């Protein structure tokens, strides 16, 4: 499991758990329901239940706990900003006044609620990418969108683009890093200067990167053609997606939970 060393947030960690083996379409669907449900969260108890469900799923997926901390750390800035906005600019009874800024009771409440919601959204989304390989996600999406191809929507092409883009993200990140280093070594100033200065400074990084990306695309296309790629017609899949009872149950369960929590939350004891 040494490759875990270099994981980005939400990168696929294959553990072979039952969650991993679920049909990606079921997981995508379940995520969709969960996201809607989380958006409707309005009280702490419901939020905690969502959090508990997340932890249970994490356990079921046999994922290590530090994916949570890493996940939270990556969006900490966003959460803090969101929380601050709510903290200082809400209405309600003032608890504390620091100059023009007021911290109200509602402000505290909203800050807490929105931070929790945002965090839950991120964590649930990462559950999908942690338990489903990018290929599977792209594949699942493609199959779900397939009916649209009958009206001309290029679902296979979109899915292939997604797969290839995901595959190249780490490679291109490494390359961008190398290019930045090379230009800095020639005296380029990347971090300083006003807005225009910084935009201009990005030319020596973006241009080589673009060239490289085009070159890669060309070589990849040649390699794909050499392996008889001709578009989606007639392609089979090694990993067959067999929708099983388990997938239906999972999807149904997630729908029910989302609906139940959504409804209860509105009338629950600690609701707003």
């Amino acid at each position, binding site marked *: 499991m040494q490759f875990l060393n*270099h994981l980005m947030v939400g990168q696929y960690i294959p553990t072979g758990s039952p969650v991993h083996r679920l049909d990606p379409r079921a997981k995508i669907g379940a995520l969709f329901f969960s996201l809607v449900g989380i958006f409707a969260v309005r009280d702490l108890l419901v939020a905690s239940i969502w959090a508990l469900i997340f932890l249970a799923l994490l356990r079921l997926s046999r994922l290590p706990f530090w994916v949570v901390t890493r996940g939270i750390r990556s969006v900490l800035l966003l959460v803090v900003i969101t929380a601050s906005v709510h903290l200082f600019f809400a209405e309600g009874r003032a608890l504390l006044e620091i100059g023009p800024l007021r911290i109200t009771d509602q402000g505290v409440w909203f800050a807490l609620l929105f931070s929790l919601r945002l965090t839950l959204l991120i964590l649930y989304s990462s559950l999908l990418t942690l338990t489903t390989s990018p290929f599977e996600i792209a594949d699942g999406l493609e199959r779900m969108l397939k009916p649209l191809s009958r009206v001309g929507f290029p679902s296979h092409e979109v899915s292939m683009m997604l797969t290839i883009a995901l595959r190249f993200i780490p490679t291109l990140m490494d390359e961008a890093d190398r290019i930045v280093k090379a230009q800095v070594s020639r005296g380029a100033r990347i971090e300083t200067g006003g807005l225009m200065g910084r935009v201009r400074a990005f030319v020596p990084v973006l241009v080589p990167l673009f060239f490289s990306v085009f070159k890669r695309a060309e070589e990849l296309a040649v390699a794909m053609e*050499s392996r008889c790629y001709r578009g989606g017609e007639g*392609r*089979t*899949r090694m990993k067959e997606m067999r929708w099983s009872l388990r997938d239906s149950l999972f999807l149904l369960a997630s729908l029910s939970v989302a609906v139940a929590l959504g409804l209860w939350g509105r009338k629950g004891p600690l609701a707003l």
Partner: protein
Amino acid sequence: MATELVCSFEGVSFRYAGSEEDALKNVSFSLRRGRWLAVLGANGSGKSTLAKHINALLRPTRGKCLVLGLDTSCGEAVWRIRSGVGMVFQNPDNQIVSSVVEEDVAFGPENLGVDPGEIRRRVDEALEVVGLKGKRSFPTYMLSGGEKQRLAIAGALAMEPQILVLDEPTAMLDPEGREEILVFLSRLRSGRDISIVYVTHRLEEALFADEALVLSRGEAVFWGSMEELFSADWETLRRWGVDVPDQVRILRSLGLPFSRELMDPRSMASFLWESRSYADRAQGG
């Protein structure tokens, strides 16, 4: 008892669009089933151009190219040819389509519409042959250069080709990666009748081959057995841009026959020492 021809070039010339000179000039040669051909020459000699003709990525401007009995210029034959010719390119990264090892190997057979169960079997076998079975679920970007190239080879092998073409596969690898590829290739050869075309400018990588084709500025200046190539004088080889390793150069300069056993310093030293002592004794009387 002649084995069948899997590939033959008849007076093939090729010019890239917008270019003023032919990249290939009247090249002719043929390859039999189960044989390993090394294509040698300097950068820009036309080696890659030639390799791309074998799987019909390029078609001759003049002349004819027959692969597995099919004419590469014939439109309909192209996909049949490509399913019989596996190709591995120089840049390890720009051949990998998927984020997961085994999924990338499956790409080729999936394109051919092979049955899922059969794809699984081919992928398992290909991974076993290249020695990546243990890393089947790994993210592809975590592989080393040598592993990425082995992955590319597995992807080609999964299509069960009759010809495997490798276009400077070790050019962007470090010595360890290079070693991995060469060791693997020599293992692949034994016990299979797959034909291999190996493009390189380094003679020491071609030592395993049966035959050699040397290109210089688009022309085929040599086509024969590996032994015959080694009996050419090294000045000529150098002029052709063939990177002759010191081991071979020393033997050739001394007029000694090439021998694979003498390729490490210790063996060659003993050999030279013995030969010289013998010569001394013979002279001294």
